[in-house]
C-alpha cells in the first residue's frame, strides 16, 4: 500500500511541476499580449476570417479574445457587444458555436503538450473544425440583410435588460 501511495505522490508532483514550468511563462506572455494591446491588432488581422462565417467585423474581437484568453473572457466581450447592439442573435450564436469548439488555444494546447501529446495536429484540427462547422452553419443560416427586422436581436436585448 505504501508503495502505491509513494507512486501517486511522486507521479502527481512531477506532473504538476512539469505543467507549472510551462504554464507560468505562458501566463507572462498572455499578460504581455494584453499590455501591448495586441488583441485589437490581432482581431483586425482576422477580420477577413469572420466574413467566411458571414459575420460582421465586430465579431472578430470576441472571437480572438475567446481564442487567446478563454471562453469566459470571450463571453464577457460578447455580452458587452450585445448591449451595444453591434451583434445580433445569429452573430452571437455563431461566435458561441466557434468558441465552444475552439478556445484558450495557448493554455489548452500547452497543457496537453506538457503531458506528451502530439500537439500541432490537435491544435490545427481544432481550429479547422471550428471554422468548417461555422462555415457550414453559415450556409444554412444566412445573415439577415441590413435594416431588416431582427427578431433574435430583440430577444437578446430583452434578455439582457
Amino acid at each position, binding site marked *: 500500500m505504501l508503495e*502505491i*501511495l509513494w*507512486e*501517486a*505522490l511522486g*507521479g*502527481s*508532483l512531477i*506532473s*504538476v511541476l512539469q*505543467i*507549472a514550468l510551462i*504554464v*507560468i*511563462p*505562458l*501566463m*507572462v*506572455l*498572455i*499578460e*504581455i499580449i494584453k*499590455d*501591448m494591446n495586441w488583441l485589437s491588432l490581432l482581431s483586425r488581422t482576422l477580420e477577413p476570417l469572420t466574413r467566411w462565417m458571414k459575420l460582421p467585423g465586430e465579431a472578430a474581437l470576441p472571437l480572438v479574445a475567446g481564442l487567446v484568453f478563454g*471562453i*469566459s473572457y470571450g*463571453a464577457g466581450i*460578447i*455580452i458587452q457587444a*450585445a448591449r451595444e447592439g453591434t451583434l445580433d*442573435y445569429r452573430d*452571437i*450564436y455563431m*461566435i*458561441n*458555436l466557434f*468558441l*465552444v*469548439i475552439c478556445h484558450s488555444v495557448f*493554455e*489548452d*494546447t500547452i*497543457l*496537453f503538450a506538457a*503531458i*506528451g*501529446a*502530439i*500537439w500541432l*495536429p*490537435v491544435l490545427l*484540427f*481544432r481550429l479547422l*473544425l471550428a471554422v468548417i*462547422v461555422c462555415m457550414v452553419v453559415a450556409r444554412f443560416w444566412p445573415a439577415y440583410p441590413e435594416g431588416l427586422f431582427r427578431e433574435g436581436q430583440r*430577444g*437578446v436585448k430583452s*434578455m*439582457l435588460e
Partner: protein
Amino acid sequence: MSWNTILRGTKNGLAITWELARVIIPVFFCVTILKYTPILPWISDLMVPIMKMVGLPGEAALPLVLGYFLTIYAAIGALLPLGLSVQEITILSVMLLLAHSLPMEAAVAKKTGVPVFGLIVIRVTLSFLAGFLFNLLL
C-alpha cells in the same frame, strides 16, 4: 510592458498551477489506487465496446468522463497514472479539447443568451468523430 506585467503573469501562472494541483493531485491518487483494485478493470471491460471505436483502452473512459463533466485538469490527473502511449494521449487530448467542462462552459455560453443543449450535443459528437479520425490517422 514592465516588471509589473511579468509579475502579474507569474502570479496568474502560480494561481493556475495551484488550481490544477488541487485537482490533479487528488485525482491522480484516486486513480493510482483504483488501478490496484478490481474496480478499474471492471469499468474498463464495461467501456471497451465504446472506447474501441476511437482506438483507446477501456480504462481511458475514466479521464474522458471526468473531463466532460468536470475539467481538463481532472482528466489529466486521471489519465497520467494509466500509462497510456503517445498516440493514446493524443487521441484523448483532441477528444477532451473539443468537449470538456460541459456543465460549466454551457453556463458561460448561456449568459450570452443562446440555447446551449445543441452546443453540448455538437461538442460530444465532434469529440468522438475526432477521436475516430485521429485513431485512423495516427
